[in-house]
């Protein structure tokens, strides 16, 4: 399927375009990607970018770029990811430098979660988070997700947060 465009109070979530790649690669090449197997070189970043885009035709869900409605600035990305090594569909988020502390990750991830449970009809969603990534754990908790200690996980050390359905 074609990726949708979603809007929230302050944000637009839209499909990736080729001209998003430089900022996407800069983020993955920076220390900000340390909880995501980073920093990654350009070839690895291209692999991530293509994975994010290819999810839409292959799975019917995937990643969206997050932009501010007022300035148009790209502030990050949120995604629903399964790939070949996640036990379940994961809700994930990345926030680019300079856009932290304003609730953008929670607002964007909440919108994509609602789309996943709603229009897309997914039954459940998890977030896999590296234990030292306190900011992401805080986002998961703000979204109402609770730790699921019994869930399968891609890496033994990951924490798993399970998101409540929209009606829950």
């Amino acid at each position, binding site marked *: 399927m074609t990726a949708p465009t979603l809007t929230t109070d302050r944000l637009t979530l839209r499909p990736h*375009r*080729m001209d998003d790649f430089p900022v996407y690669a800069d983020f993955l090449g920076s220390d900000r990607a340390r909880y995501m197997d980073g920093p990654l070189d350009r070839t690895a970043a*291209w*692999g991530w970018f*293509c994975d994010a*885009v*290819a999810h839409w035709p*292959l799975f019917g869900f995937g990643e969206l770029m997050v932009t501010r409605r007022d300035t148009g600035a790209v502030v990050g990305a949120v995604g629903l990811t399964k790939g*070949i090594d996640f036990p379940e569909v994961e809700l994930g988020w990345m926030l680019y430098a300079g856009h932290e502390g304003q609730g953008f990750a929670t607002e964007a991830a909440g919108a994509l979660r609602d789309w996943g449970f709603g229009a897309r009809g997914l039954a459940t969603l998890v977030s896999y988070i590296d234990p030292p990534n306190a900011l992401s754990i805080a986002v998961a908790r703000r979204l109402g997700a609770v730790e699921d200690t019994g869930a399968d996980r891609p890496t033994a050390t990951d924490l798993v947060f399970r998101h409540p359905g929209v009606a829950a």
Partner: protein
Amino acid sequence: MTPPTLTTARLTLRPATMADFGAYAAFLTTPRSRFMGGPHDVKTAWDWFCNDTAQWTLLDMGALIIERQGRVIGQVAVCGGPIFPEPELGWFLYDSADEGQGFAFEAAAAMRDWVLGPRGLATVVAYIDPMNAASIRLAERLGGQRDERAATPDGIATGVWRLHAGLRLETKRLVLRKPHMGDLSECVAFWSSPRSHMMGGPWTAEVTATNLQEVIDLWDLRGFGLFVVTLKGSDKAVGLMGAWQPADYPEPEIGWSLWDISLEGKGLAFEAVAVARDWFFATSGQITAVSYTHPDNMRSHRLCERLGAVYDPDTVQIDPPERIYRHSAGGARA
């Protein structure tokens, strides 16, 4: 863009789905991928599979799965992006049992025709390991030539074979391109019909095939010839138009046939012939050409006059009775 599905004589080339990943990864993790830097691990296979798929969204090109009689036998792709210096045409067959039957060539030729035709790229390359003699032969059959000066992807010792787009003329409503034998069924539909009687028809399918081959061969011999005319947005031939010179013609002739009666009366023949004539005079160095018309073919006479050609009673008729018009380079334009 939505990926196209292409069909050839024996194959269907279609977009990938998740169900195709297993066979794709199985290929890349075996020594059969040795000329592609392999064998690779499954993670790399996934990155490549996503690259091949995401291209359609990001760059309006990408990979298509090759199916023969419902069975997946490989993949053909045109991929660009930040890792390769320029878009690359690539192909592979999963199973050696499917080799040696021309399947890779058939699939790669269809992808080449799509990317250099409707997709509109001017050039595409194939990066090939110099030890991979079979792929080098295939690239050369596709019309590729070794390009020693082309950039290569970082860290890969590879040869580069380059293919160029064929000639392509555009008007407001039409695209003109060189003919190929894939146009035969549209040719036969016209030349077997009574509508072809002003053009020396009707002909059997065998005669039409011979004549289409001659039209194709004349391009190679003279560097100009009849263009296939297509409506924009479709590659289907709806006519043959332009300047050509068969072996028994004393000088180049500007000719046309429009095969679908529903397309007549819209000025399409004028639009196509005018651009083909301008191209011919601009590129051939010739200064004059004739149009041999049937004396009863009033539509053609009017078209000649609109094109600025003049009735020429003094030129020798090659298949009387004829009414001959003469075109001149830089001559009057309608």
